[in-house]
């Protein structure tokens, strides 16, 4: 018994590596010679390993228990326990599924909204293109808004009136101007350079070319002397010096420049583009070349470009005039064949001569 215990101690020390070389050698000798000693060594080795694992697991469990004691189990349990209400239970169970469903719904709503939104945008675009189409017809109309705040109080009720320019096409009171100046007006007046006003009425309109012809219908009006300018039959070349006289304010204003393009707004072949800086009120003004030939009528200007204007080509003036009974225009009408009275004159003289034939148009 005593020997057994000593042997056990020696085996344990051997397995734990505590024996010195001599003792180790002695035990290994013993193991080889005695099968029971060898068995004891092996079984003790196994036992020690089991004990090691046991000890480790036990320590781990202690550690876990210690951590566990730090947790407020009751508090957690009360929030996590199956809730008496089925709704809450369902919510907890299917939290993630509900979240997925909700986000899907949100996503669909967003996409539906954006699809509708996109459709709206397309509509708006179409509207815009309509506006562009309108703009091709009217461009940026150069109508002057006349403020009546400072005028005499005998016409206090008139809120809006517009003004433009027009010019005589016959000596007996036919005046040509832009249609957009007089469109929708109740009554029309023209005023000459001396400040005399005459009542006029519209006798012809050409919406396509934005041309209107007015007739002075006033007993105070006496016939003009012969028209100084003539109509240019051929189209003008780029670079040709031209000028216009108009009424952007209450006095006539001269604008000078050159033909800058043979086509007008977005390639409109019925118009020229001229490099004359014009203002609201210039609309309907005549464009003349150096020889006093009528090249066109100022009708509009591009929105974005400064110092440019569009002018209706003179051949449409002729077309408009043909639409009026030729007899009513009288003998001394604007014509193609006659030689212009302005030819060879200096600009100041030319202006002097034509200013009686250029009128301010007032539309109420």
């Amino acid at each position: 018994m005593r020997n057994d215990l000593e042997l056990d101690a020696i085996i344990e020390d051997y397995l734990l590596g505590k024996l010195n070389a001599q003792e180790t050698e002695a035990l290994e000798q013993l193991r080889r010679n005695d099968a029971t000693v060898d068995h004891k060594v092996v079984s003790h080795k196994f036992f020690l390993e089991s004990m090691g694992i046991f000890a480790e697991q036990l320590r781990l469990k202690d550690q876990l228990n210690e951590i566990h004691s730090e947790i407020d189990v009751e508090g957690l349990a009360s929030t996590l326990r199956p809730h008496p209400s089925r709704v809450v239970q369902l919510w907890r169970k299917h939290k993630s599924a509900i979240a997925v469903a909700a986000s899907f719904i949100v996503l669909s709503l967003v996409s539906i909204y954006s699809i509708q939104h996109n459709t709206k945008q397309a509509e708006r675009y179409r509207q815009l293109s309509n506006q562009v189409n309108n703009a091709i017809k009217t461009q940026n109309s150069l109508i002057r808004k006349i403020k009546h705040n400072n005028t005499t109080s005998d016409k206090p009720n008139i809120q809006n009136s517009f003004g433009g320019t027009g010019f005589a096409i016959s000596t007996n009171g036919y005046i040509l101007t832009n249609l957009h100046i007089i469109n929708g007006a109740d009554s029309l007046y023209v005023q000459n350079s001396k400040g005399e006003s005459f009542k006029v009425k519209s006798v012809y309109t050409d919406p396509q070319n934005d041309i209107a012809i007015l007739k002075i219908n006033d007993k105070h009006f006496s016939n003009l002397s012969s028209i100084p300018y003539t109509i240019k039959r051929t189209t003008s070349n780029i670079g040709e010096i031209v000028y216009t006289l108009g009424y952007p304010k209450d006095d006539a204003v001269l604008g000078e420049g050159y033909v800058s393009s043979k086509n007008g707004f977005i390639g409109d072949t019925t118009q020229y583009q001229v490099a004359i800086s014009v203002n609201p009120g210039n609309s309907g003004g005549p464009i003349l070349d150096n020889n006093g030939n009528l090249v066109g009528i100022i009708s509009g200007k591009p929105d974005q470009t400064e110092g440019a204007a569009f002018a209706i080509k003179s051949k449409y003036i002729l077309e408009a005039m043909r639409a009026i009974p030729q007899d009513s225009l009288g003998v001394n009408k604007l014509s193609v064949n006659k030689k212009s009275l302005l030819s060879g004159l200096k600009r100041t003289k030319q202006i002097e001569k034509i200013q009686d034939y250029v009128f301010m148009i007032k539309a109420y």
Partner: protein
Amino acid sequence: MNNSLKSSVPTDREVILGILNNSEDTLNKLYKAYYAMVLQFILNNNGDEDDAKDVYQEAIIILYNKIKEGNFELSSKLKTYIYSVCRRIWLKKLSLNSKKTGSITDYEDVFAVEEDVEHHEEKDAAFVKMQSALDHLGEPCKTIIQDFYIHNLSMQDICEKFGYTNTDNAKTQKYKCLQRLKKIFFQP
């Protein structure tokens, strides 16, 4: 409490490195990170807080041993792994107690862990065997053996603790106890 638990969830990599380095702090964080999840699962599947504790600790031990053995490959999130192990253990316990296992209320994805759980059960059997052997040993042998092998006290400490006149006597006593323990432990 709940919030502080959630806020300190360690990353999976942190957990594995921490356990390999015997970091108590990591174990602490790991334990607190996923306890609520398991508690919820057990409470909603015919269990109570104590069941949750047992199952959860077993799962943590399985994970701990697996990482220590060095063959842990992170093929899923740790959270999923722990949940799956707990689920597996709890299902087994339910069927052992012949409680109804018809409809299990799941809260997380499940991952196949049968092998790990069975491997653990074998190990656990050895643990239970040693535990019962120690319990059968009786005092003072049980305490002497525990002090020496588990709490790593020296023979000198044990000698003083139990009032032996010298360490040789203590040693003799220890080997007597050890012989008896081995006899019980190796009993078929």
